[in-house]
C-alpha cells in the first residue's frame, strides 16, 4: 500500500446521507465502473503494474481478475512506453484497453506513445482507425512523495490535440465519468486524486454515464466564480462556504473534464459574476489555470469586474518535506484570501 496512506486516512470528509441513496467509498465506485464495463463489453480489458496485486490500485481493481479472468485483467512488465503502445495498438484493432498507473509521473515514460501516437493516429489515418483507450492514474500529494511521485500532469497534456482529460471529484463522478471514458472512441486520460480516495459518496448501482466535456455547478452564487476540477474543487467548496460566512456569494463549477473544456458553463457563470478564480491541482504556468485565464481575457473580458486569479502550483517542482509542502499546495485558506482580495468591499 502506498505510504501516503497515513495522510489520506487523516483527511475528513462530510459523510453523505444514506437517505439520498447507496453510499460507496471512492475506490469502490471506480471498481464498480470497471466491473460493469468488463461485464458489458468483451472488448474491454484492464492492464497495469499491480492491477491484480493485493493492494489492487487502492482497491479500484480488487476482485476483477477473479471475476473476469487473467486474460482480461493483467499485470504488465515495468515498461511504460511499450505498454502504452501495446494499449494503443490493441485499441486500434478492436479492443478497449484501460491502462492503469499508480501515479501520473510514470506516464511521462510513455509520452512518445501517448503524444506521438495514440493521440493522433485517428487524425493521421484520416479517421480510419480509432483509439478507444483509457489511461488512468491517481495524482499523489504530500507525505514526502516528492518531485517524482506527486506530479499532476494535466497541464502538460492539455495542449495535445486528440486527447481527452477527465478529472473527477466525487465517487459518483468517478464511476460515471470512467464509464463514459471507456465507452469513448478516443484516448481518454482519467486523473484521480489520492486525497479523494477516502471520500464516500452516493453512487447509483446501475450503469450510468456522465458526458465528457460538460461541467457542473457544485454551488450557485452571484458574486464570484470558482472553476476547477478534482481535488481542487473539494477545496474550492470549503473555501466558498467560508467566503459565504464573510458575506461573499461564490459559484463553484466542477469542470469534470478539463479537455475538452466546457467553455459554455464558464462563460455563463462569468457573465453573471464578473469574477473568476481558477483552481487546479497542478502548475499554474501553461496549464488549466492559464488556459482558462486566457479564455477569460480573450472572450469574456467585457464581463470581468476584477482581474482573473489563479490558484495552483507555483513554477516549482513538488517538494518532499512536510514543511515545504505547506507553502506549495493550494489550500482553502489561500483560496479564501484570494476571494477576499477579488471582492474588496468585504
Amino acid at each position: 500500500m502506498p505510504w501516503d496512506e497515513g495522510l489520506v486516512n487523516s483527511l475528513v470528509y462530510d459523510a453523505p446521507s444514506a437517505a439520498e441513496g447507496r453510499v460507496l467509498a471512492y475506490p469502490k465506485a471506480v471498481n464498480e465502473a470497471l466491473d460493469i464495463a468488463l461485464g458489458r463489453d468483451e472488448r474491454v480489458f484492464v492492464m497495469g503494474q499491480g492491477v491484480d496485486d493485493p493492494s489492487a490500485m487502492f482497491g479500484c481493481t480488487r476482485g476483477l481478475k477473479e471475476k473476469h479472468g487473467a486474460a482480461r485483467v493483467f499485470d504488465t512488465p515495468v515498461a511504460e512506453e511499450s505498454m502504452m503502445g501495446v494499449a494503443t495498438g490493441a485499441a486500434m484493432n478492436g479492443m478497449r484497453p484501460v491502462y492503469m498507473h499508480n501515479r501520473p509521473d510514470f506516464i511521462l515514460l510513455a509520452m512518445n506513445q501517448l503524444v506521438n501516437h495514440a493521440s493522433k493516429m485517428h487524425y493521421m489515418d484520416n479517421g480510419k482507425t480509432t483509439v478507444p483507450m483509457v489511461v488512468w492514474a491517481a495524482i499523489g500529494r504530500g507525505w514526502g512523495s516528492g518531485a517524482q511521485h506527486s506530479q499532476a500532469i494535466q497541464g502538460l497534456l492539455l495542449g495535445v490535440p486528440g486527447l481527452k482529460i477527465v478529472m473527477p471529484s466525487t465517487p459518483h463522478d468517478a464511476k460515471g465519468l470512467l464509464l463514459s471514458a471507456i465507452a469513448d472512441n478516443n484516448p481518454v486520460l482519467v486523473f484521480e486524486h489520492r486525497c479523494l480516495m477516502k471520500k464516500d459518496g452516493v453512487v447509483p448501482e446501475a450503469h450510468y454515464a456522465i458526458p465528457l466535456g460538460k461541467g457542473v455547478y457544485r454551488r450557485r452564487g452571484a458574486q464570484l466564480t470558482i472553476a476547477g476540477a478534482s481535488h481542487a474543487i473539494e477545496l474550492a467548496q470549503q473555501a466558498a462556504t467560508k467566503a459565504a460566512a464573510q458575506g461573499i456569494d461564490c459559484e463553484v463549477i466542477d469542470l469534470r473534464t478539463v479537455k475538452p473544456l466546457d467553455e459554455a458553463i464558464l462563460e455563463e457563470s462569468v457573465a453573471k459574476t464578473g469574477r473568476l478564480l481558477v483552481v487546479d491541482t497542478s502548475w499554474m504556468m501553461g496549464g488549466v489555470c492559464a488556459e482558462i485565464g486566457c479564455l477569460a481575457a480573450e472572450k469574456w473580458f467585457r464581463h470581468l469586474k476584477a482581474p482573473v486569479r489563479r490558484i495552483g502550483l507555483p513554477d516549482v517542482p513538488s517538494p518532499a518535506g512536510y514543511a515545504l509542502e505547506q507553502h506549495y499546495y493550494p489550500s482553502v485558506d489561500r483560496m479564501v484570501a484570494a476571494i477576499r482580495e477579488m471582492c474588496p468591499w468585504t
Partner: protein
Amino acid sequence: MHSYQGKGLSSLGRHEAAFCAELFRRMLRIRRIEEEIERRYHQDQMKTPIHLVIGQEATAVGCGAALRPTDLAYSSHRTHGVYLAKGGDLRAMLSEMHCRANGCAGSRGGSMHLIDFSVGMAGTSAIVAGSVPLATGAALAAQMQNAGRVVAVFFGEAATEEGVVSECLNFAALKKLPIVFFCENNFYSVQSPIEPRQAPRELDRWAAAHAMSAVRVDGMNVLEVYDAARQAVERARKGEGPTFIEARVYRYRAHGGAGDDSKTGYRPVAEREAWEKLDPVEGLFKLLKEVDRKVIESDISREIEEAFDHALRSPDPTEEDLYRHVYAVG
C-alpha cells in the same frame, strides 16, 4: 566496409518458377515506382519527405508474400516497399504523396504514413521504433480475439537501440503473441554507421535472449527472406509465439530524398557498388526462364504513368478537411 555475408542467390531451390516470377514482378514494380518518384521528386509536386527502398525490395516482398491479406503489417518511416508489397493501392499512395484529398491518409500522412486497411497495411510511425509497440498491441488484440491473424512489423537496426523494442520483445515472448519482428539491418541510421552506435553484437542472438525464436537471413535474397518469414508466420499462427528476423540489406540511396549521398563521405561509394552487384531484383531475374520482361516492364510503366496522372488530377484538401477527425465521434 559493410560487406555482403550472404551466400547469394544461385538457384530457385524448391520454389515454383511461377511463384518466383511473381516475386520478381513485385520487386521490379517497387523498384520502378521508386525510380519514378525519384525522377520526379525535384519537380516539387510531391511535398513530402521520401525514404526510398531501392536495394531493399526483397525484404518487404519476401515477407509480404508470406502474409495473408487479413494479416497486418506495420512499418517504420521507410514505408513504400511494405505498403506496396502488402498490396497497398498505388493510386492512393501517389495521391497521398502529392498531398491530395484522396490520398490514402487524406494528406495527413504523406510518404511516411502510408496505410491501406483493405489489405492489412495497418500503421506506420515516423518515430524510430514507434510502430513496434503498436504492432505488438495489434498482436495482443489478435490473440485476445482469437482471430488467427498474424502481425509483421518492419524496422531498421537502429530501432534495436531504442529501449522500447526490447520491451516489446519481452512482452511478445511473455504472451506468446502472433507477431514477426522484421529487422532490416542496412548498417546506417541516416548517415551514422552502426559501429559508433552499437557494440559488436549479433542481433539475432540479442533477440533470442528475450526467449524467442530468432534468425538471420540474407536480405538481398528474396527466397531466403520468404522461407524465414513463412516459418515465422506459421509459428505465430499456430500460437507458438513471436519470431525475430534480422535481414541484412543495403539501401542504394540516401536515407531520405532523391539520389545517393555516399559521396558526402559517410560511407564508401565502393561499398554501395559492391552491394549493387548483388541486386535482389536482377539477381532473381537471372534465374528465371520464360519470363517476358518486356511485357512486365511495360505493364508496370503504364500503371505508374496512370497513377501519377491520377494523383496530379486529384483535388487538394480544403480548410474544412483540416479540422476533420481530430476526435472520433462516439
